[in-house]
């Protein structure tokens, strides 16, 4: 026997207009176990809430049914009323007679009849409800940030400044990400290194940040508040505790490989630091390029190193860190434009991609900031091609958002550094950021030629074999253009990192159509993910500029903080449990759960649920052939009882 109280809300006339509310309350009082039934103008108002609270006490209610607006609206409000009155909050049932009854009909009879059926269903389910308690767990106060681009750097610094310990994990031997490759940044044209290098140094100096370069995550266990993350420290063959960064080794090294940092435009040594301001300023050996590793002879670096820091026997090592929250900021790659053969990238030396050009502008780059072609000559005409592989249904449908702007930046820098004619081939100019339209107007003034039309092909010139011909239709004049140039710059689509799938798998993230990490909600939860306690920031979520990346990083840091700032965390109470007596050990549940919550307990021979991981979807409960899984708050009995009640009227 339960003692149920039913509270019918008028919601002003919102409900009362098409549902006879007092008749509904009267009807409720005839239902079994209902000891009190009332209707009231505004149940969610303070007097309404007080009325419920009083009746809980006066009538010793053990179940409450509020017949009002959608549970999505006020379930939390009324749960609090129960809790404050000493009743378990899960003993509340909401009957939605506004959104799903009074607002979708004009007919008073129909509305009242449907409301009765819904209420009857709720009463029969209500009796079977069980009090639930959320489990409370301890929260680890530390945070891991994955990826040391500007997003990761910013997030790590913000968190470290609040006194949190931060592990910043970067796969490369330096932090900095793409921003460290640039010379100037739009729209202000401030020097990238000048604003980034101090931040990189702060990361290194910060007492709360443990910087882990040449590191990758190999396993993630646990859940929000308590992640156990295994990190692989890749062998560097240089003991960074001993190394004093004299870099004598890098001078003597005969081994060579293409410099990733300079986008392959030049070579670097086998023992190297990627660029002069790298953080940390300590070299690593590239095993693939090292003469000793290849031929068994050399060891020149070892000989010159006074610190005895070189260690050819070094192995990858594994360590585990424990954190309460994670921020993923793994950034982007540019698409491989060799796949778009019509643009001749990789075939004609005069065709460059955008990051290569960034390196040409950079005073620390391969040409010391001079814009020269691969043969050392200065280009006389340069064409910048927008939307290469972006906004293209055959390649990547998305707009990469920053290409218009950096293409304008390139035009300015070309004008500054060369006397070349500069042409922009664009579909639309998208300059929708603070100061962006102004920047665009400024570039127009700088004698840059804008041609609206997507380039169809880049070909070798027949008349002048060293030059290229850019072929496009000018969609403003309708004319077909064949423009001879010396240099073609492709602005390729920004795409997810090649390792994004692995990261998604490790942290249980979803990816969107393009492969970028998916946010929990596109508008209201853009930084959190479906994986509780894991947040995303920067271009790994979608293409964006540095200001937006930094804003996201700050936001993600704040979100991570809201978790680790508490020492205890309340877990979802509406999880599932296995009745071991019925479990037939088929392990269906283990296979289907999107969150890896069920696991097979070998010694006991039954499946169990890690409740901290369970999100309560109930999928496992409906694949369990022996009905061993009980989905709390949505048990088979509860759902069936509601259905029975609904079908009675």
């Amino acid at each position, binding site marked *: 026997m339960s003692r149920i109280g039913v509270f019918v809300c008028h919601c002003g006339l919102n409900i009362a207009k098409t549902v006879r509310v007092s008749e509904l309350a009267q009807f409720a009082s005839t239902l079994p176990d209902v000891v009190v039934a009332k209707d009231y103008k505004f149940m969610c108002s303070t007097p309404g809430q007080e009325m419920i609270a009083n009746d809980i006490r006066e009538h010793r209610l053990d179940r409450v049914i509020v017949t009002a607006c*959608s*549970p*999505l609206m006020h379930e939390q409000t009324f749960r609090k009323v129960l809790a404050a009155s000493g009743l378990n909050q899960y003993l509340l049932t909401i009957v*939605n007679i*506004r*959104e*799903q*009854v009074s*607002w*979708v*009909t*004009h*007919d008073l009879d*129909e*509305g009242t*009849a*449907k409301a009765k*059926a*819904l209420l009857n*269903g709720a009463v029969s389910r209500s009796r079977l409800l069980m009090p639930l308690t959320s489990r409370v767990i301890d929260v680890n106060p530390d945070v891991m940030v994955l990826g040391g681009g500007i997003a990761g750097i910013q997030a790590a610094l913000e968190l470290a400044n609040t006194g949190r310990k931060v592990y910043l994990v970067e796969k490369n031997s330096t932090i900095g990400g793409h921003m460290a490759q640039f010379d100037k940044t739009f729209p202000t044209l401030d020097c990238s290194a000048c604003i980034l290098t101090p931040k990189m140094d702060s990361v290194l100096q910060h007492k709360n940040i443990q910087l882990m370069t040449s590191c990758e995550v190999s396993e993630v266990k646990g859940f929000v508040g308590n992640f156990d993350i295994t990190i692989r420290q890749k062998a560097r063959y240089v003991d960074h505790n001993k190394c004093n960064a004299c870099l004598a080794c890098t001078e003597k090294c005969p081994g060579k490989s293409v410099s990733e940092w300079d986008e392959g435009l030049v070579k670097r040594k086998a023992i190297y630091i990627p660029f002069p301001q790298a953080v940390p300023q300590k070299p690593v050996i590239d095993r693939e390029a090292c003469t000793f590793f290849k031929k068994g002879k050399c060891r020149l670096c070892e000989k010159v190193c006074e610190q005895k820091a070189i260690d050819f026997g070094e192995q990858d090592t594994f360590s585990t860190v424990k954190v309460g929250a994670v921020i993923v900021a793994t950034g982007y790659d540019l698409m491989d434009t060799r796949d778009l053969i019509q643009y001749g990238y990789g075939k004609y030396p005069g065709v460059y991609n955008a990051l290569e050009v960034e390196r040409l502008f950079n005073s620390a780059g391969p040409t010391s900031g001079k814009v020269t072609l691969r043969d050392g000559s200065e280009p006389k005409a340069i064409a910048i091609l927008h939307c290469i592989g972006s906004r293209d249904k055959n390649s990547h449908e998305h707009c990469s958002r920053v290409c218009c702007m950096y293409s304008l930046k390139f035009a300015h820098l070309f004008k500054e550094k060369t006397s070349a004619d500069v042409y922009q081939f664009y579909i639309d100019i998208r300059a929708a950021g603070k100061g962006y339209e102004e920047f665009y107007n400024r570039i127009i003034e700088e004698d840059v030629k804008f041609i609206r039309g997507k380039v169809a092909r880049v070909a070798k010139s027949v008349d002048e074999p060293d030059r290229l011909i850019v072929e496009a239709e000018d969609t403003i004049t309708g004319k077909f253009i064949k423009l001879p140039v010396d240099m073609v710059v492709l602005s390729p689509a920004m795409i997810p990192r090649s390792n994004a799938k692995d990261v998604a798998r490790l942290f249980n993230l*979803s990816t969107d159509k393009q492969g970028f990490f998916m946010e929990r909600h596109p508008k209201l939860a853009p930084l959190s993910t*479906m994986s509780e306690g894991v947040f995303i920031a920067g271009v790994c979520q979608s293409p964006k500029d540095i200001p937006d990346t930094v804003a996201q990083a700050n936001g993600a840091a704040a979100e991570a903080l809201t978790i680790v700032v508490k020492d205890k965390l309340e877990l979802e109470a*509406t999880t599932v449990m296995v009745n071991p007596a019925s479990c037939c050990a088929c392990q269906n549940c283990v296979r*289907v759960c*999107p*969150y890896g919550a069920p696991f097979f307990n070998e010694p006991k021979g039954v499946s169990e649920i890690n409740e901290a991981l369970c*999100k*309560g*979807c*109930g*999928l496992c*409960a*409906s*694949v369990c052939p022996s009905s061993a899984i009980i*989905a709390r708050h*949505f048990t*088979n009995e509860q*759902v*069936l009882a*509601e*259905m*029975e009640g*609904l*079908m009675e009227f």
Partner: protein
Amino acid sequence: MSFEPKILGIACNWCTYTGADLAGTTRLQYPQNIRVVRVMCSSRINPSFIFRAFQLGADGVLVGGCHPGDCHYNTGNLYARRRLAVTKKILEFAGLEPGRFRVEWISASEGNKFAQVVTEFTGQIKALGPQTKFKIS
């Protein structure tokens, strides 16, 4: 009196139930024959719920979930899709008229789709008349 069917709806919390709420918020009108049970995800729906609904005298059953790929729990509705397709086959094999059981993917922003599907489905069930095949009286 004309035949007023009883229709059971089972909707996932995150998409279809929210979509049904939106139909209300935007004051769309649809027949009142449907009564919706809320579950967290369409994947929670055990085929036995459907069988039971018809035993209880439902003239039609409409299941609603997020669009495949959009499930709040990532893959939940992909399982639901397969399981409910089999459920439909079994029901029809056992003699149920094909039109009485329907699965629809209705997102939280598709209030109009919810209203439209319910209207259409109700009309269809009315045309089929009372369901007597499984009903236990």
